[in-house]
């Protein structure tokens, strides 16, 4: 069994799976239950400024019969008294010395407020502090949460207030509700944060009730943007994670990143690790199914590592980061084409219509090797979709819509051209930026646009 133990900014946990700061980490009762079932750590639901919550709070995104493909919420930070939270944090940490207990905090943007909460948190024996710069609703209007995370200067300032007094690791949690996530990330680095975590929830409206035109969730006839999370946000989170993990300033100081955003299974977890996360935070999956998912998260990850012959989870952290490239560095001569296996094809023709109307018109419907027109064809033999490989641009779309496993494969073929990137081409032949020259270049090297 592979070693899943993790050290994150000096904080140790038996596995990389932490509960994210959210409703599942609202109380000692919940976190004790989670630790009993094997969770490696927990980030306590944000404590700090006094709040009043509303009802209702969550909205679910159901897609084609699948419940909670995503969730959004207008719940605020912890509404339990600060003292109760602090007492319970102390109890939990005492009981579970080997697990990571991090406390998320958000207070008014004043140095004394931050100093005070840092002292209180340190006093509990917690392993670290997570600065919540992400909450997109309710708190941001009061100058907290995303209001801080969206302005790099604020991010630096407040982080400095904390790092100047904190003796335990300080993790800055970033909001995805920005144009460029690396800006607030670098601001946190500049303020000597010990680690980053991302992503917080995304601004969203989950839907409208078609019966009564009410927004979801409906708070007494009104709705608002809420924080979007769950499986549907994973690709956004992976992108932001890789963007931050790639930053030279982050790599130079070896800043660990706690990745989150749609982690539901061990497969998701593995992807976050490969793109540079050292620890992982989970929320929506637990809100849907409970803490018990930890068994499959750890076992599945461990079985996968065993199968790959990898001894410890540390070996894969960031392993795919070097592959994250700019478009300008892609090899323009690399070529794949689609091939459809007629043996397993079920004649659903989704590939045909996707290619013909949604992409580049390089699949024909054929009978006995002859192209037919589906609008007029009346024969009894079912036509078979066939790719014209010379015309195929290798976009993948047909293989993405094909419902049959391995029926459509994307095959690497020799384009017959020397390897060259856009950056190389435009520096060697800047004239190709003119259409006539571009045409000439294409003819020279044999690039045919279908």
């Amino acid at each position, binding site marked *: 069994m592979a070693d899943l133990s993790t050290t994150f900014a000096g904080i140790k946990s038996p596995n990389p799976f932490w509960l994210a700061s959210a409703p599942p980490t609202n109380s000692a009762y919940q976190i004790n239950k989670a630790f009993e079932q094997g969770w490696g750590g927990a980030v306590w639901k944000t404590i700090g400024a006094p709040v009043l919550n509303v009802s209702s709070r969550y909205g679910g995104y159901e897609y084609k019969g699948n419940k909670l493909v995503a969730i959004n919420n207008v719940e605020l930070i912890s509404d339990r008294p600060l003292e109760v939270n602090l007492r319970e944090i102390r109890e939990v940490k005492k009981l579970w010395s080997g697990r990571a207990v991090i406390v998320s905090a958000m207070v008014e943007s004043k140095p004394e407020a931050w100093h005070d909460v840092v002292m209180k948190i340190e006093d509990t024996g917690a392993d670290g502090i997570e600065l919540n710069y992400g909450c997109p609703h309710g708190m941001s209007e009061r100058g907290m949460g995303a209001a801080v995370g969206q302005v790099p200067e604020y991010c630096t300032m407040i982080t400095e207030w904390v790092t100047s007094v904190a003796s335990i690791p300080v993790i800055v949690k970033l909001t995805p509700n920005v144009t460029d996530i690396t800006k607030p990330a670098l601001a946190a680095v500049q303020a000597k944060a010990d680690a980053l975590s991302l992503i917080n929830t995304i601004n969203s409206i989950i839907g409208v009730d078609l019966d009564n035109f009410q927004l979801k969730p409906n708070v007494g006839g009104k709705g608002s943007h809420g924080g979007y999370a769950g499986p549907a946000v994973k690709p956004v989170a992976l992108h932001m994670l890789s963007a931050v993990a790639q930053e030279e300033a982050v790599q130079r100081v070896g800043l660990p990143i706690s990745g989150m955003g749609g982690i539901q299974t061990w497969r998701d977890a593995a992807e976050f690790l490969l793109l540079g996360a050292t620890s992982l935070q989970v929320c929506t999956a637990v809100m849907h199914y*409970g803490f018990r998912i930890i*068994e*499959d998260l750890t*076992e*599945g990850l461990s*079985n*996968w590592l065993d199968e790959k012959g990898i001894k410890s989870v540390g070996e894969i952290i960031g392993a795919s980061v070097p592959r994250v490239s700019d478009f300008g560095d892609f090899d323009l001569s690399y070529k794949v084409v689609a091939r459809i296996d007629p043996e397993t094809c079920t004649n659903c023709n989704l590939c045909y219509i996707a290619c013909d109307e949604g992409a580049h018109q390089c699949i024909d419907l054929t009978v006995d090797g002859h192209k037919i027109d589906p609008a007029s064809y009346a024969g009894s033999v079912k036509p078979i979709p066939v790719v014209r490989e010379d015309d195929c641009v290798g976009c993948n779309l047909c293989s993405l819509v094909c419902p049959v*496993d391995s029926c459509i494969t994307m095959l690497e073929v020799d384009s017959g051209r020397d390897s060259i990137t856009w950056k190389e081409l435009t520096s060697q032949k800047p004239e190709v930026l003119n259409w006539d020259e571009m045409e000439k270049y294409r003819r020279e090297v044999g690039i045919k646009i279908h």
Partner: protein
Amino acid sequence: MDGSKLSLDELKDRFSEIKPALSKREASIEANRCLYCFDAPCIAACPTSIDVPTFIHKISTDNVLGAATTILEANLLAATCSRVCPVEELCEGACVLGTDHKPIEIGRLQRYAMDYLYDRDLMPLTTAPPNGKKVAVIGAGPAGLSCAGELAKLGYQVTVLEKQNLPGGLSTYGIVVMREPIRIALEEVEFVKKLGVEIKTGVEVGKDISAKDLLEQYDAVFIATGMGKVPDLGIPGEDLSGVSEALSFIAETKLAEKEGLERLSKLPVGRRVAVIGAGNTAIDAATIAKRLGADNVTIVYRRSAEEMPAYDFEYEFIKNEGVEFRFLSQPLEILGENGQVSGLRCDKMQLGEPGDDGRHQVSPVPNSEFTLECDQVIKAIGQEKLLELFAAFELELKRGYVKVDETLRSSNPQVFAGGDCIRAGGLAMTVTATEDGKIAAKSIHNWLLETTS
């Protein structure tokens, strides 16, 4: 009687597993349909309490090894159970999705996970270091294998003694090929052996080794012998050529299929076959006869359809196979010509008042005799109890079954028993036998811990 007249291709069709394996994609879609209920009714409905939602969740994440591990932790005979369990009556019958649409195909998903494990020859279970204690298990069927495997996991040195040439019990010999090919049963045996269990075949207790020797040489004995031979009907003509009993008939097809379709095609089968009895074994024998190419197969039963001991879904199944029924018919004599079966003479019966067991009494209708033309008669009328063996261990019995307490301990404190030798009829399933093995292993373990501490 000649061999099957069917082509090998047709035989292959007829003797392949009735429900095909799920493809990876099918399994993924089906697993994702599972709600992953908490405290789920399917767990409670499984006699071995397999954590169904957890294993299905693991299939949904493609942690198939983990799924198999979850299953095996509760049930070492899971590959067999996934094929032969009456899931409609157990887990799938309890599935919450059954209330408004289709229950999850739990059996086929379990099979998917077990096939994954056996195809790759993986061993996800760990065993404790040897504890120096020895246990003998009599019978290498599901109950015996389950008990042996569970004890081996706890560090016991376990020896299983099996009378037959092959281990596996009814999984090997008794379950029709289309439900479970012999290969699966033997793979499961190999898995239990890998846990450290020793299996000696061709060894009969009472003949090759005495009960007394066993009790002296082992710290505890688990009896999992199942049932004995099929009794005579006690009517004239039973010695005619063409008369056989259902279990041997099924066993022959199992062994033949193992050697290939060619061998299966040579098995003799009648053109017109009468099967006597209407339990699940009768249904199986009738199915086999029909699929081997018999023109006509008739089940002869002295009571009515309502009293049939076979499962309802088995009855539905067999009707689609084209098997005919003669209810309320009591065989009186097997008729013969030149030493070969030529017919079955029967009385028509009528239903009377319900008896002690709630089933209607039956009595012959005067002057109602008729003859069913047939060239093969298969008896499927239950099995005898192994009274001699039980007597050798000086065990108290209850209606011919070994009397046990809730820990499955017999009247002899050193002897435990489980499987078909402790219970009758419809409750005797592979999955209950497997659970018996688990319970007995736990009881033996607790007892030996107590006595040594």
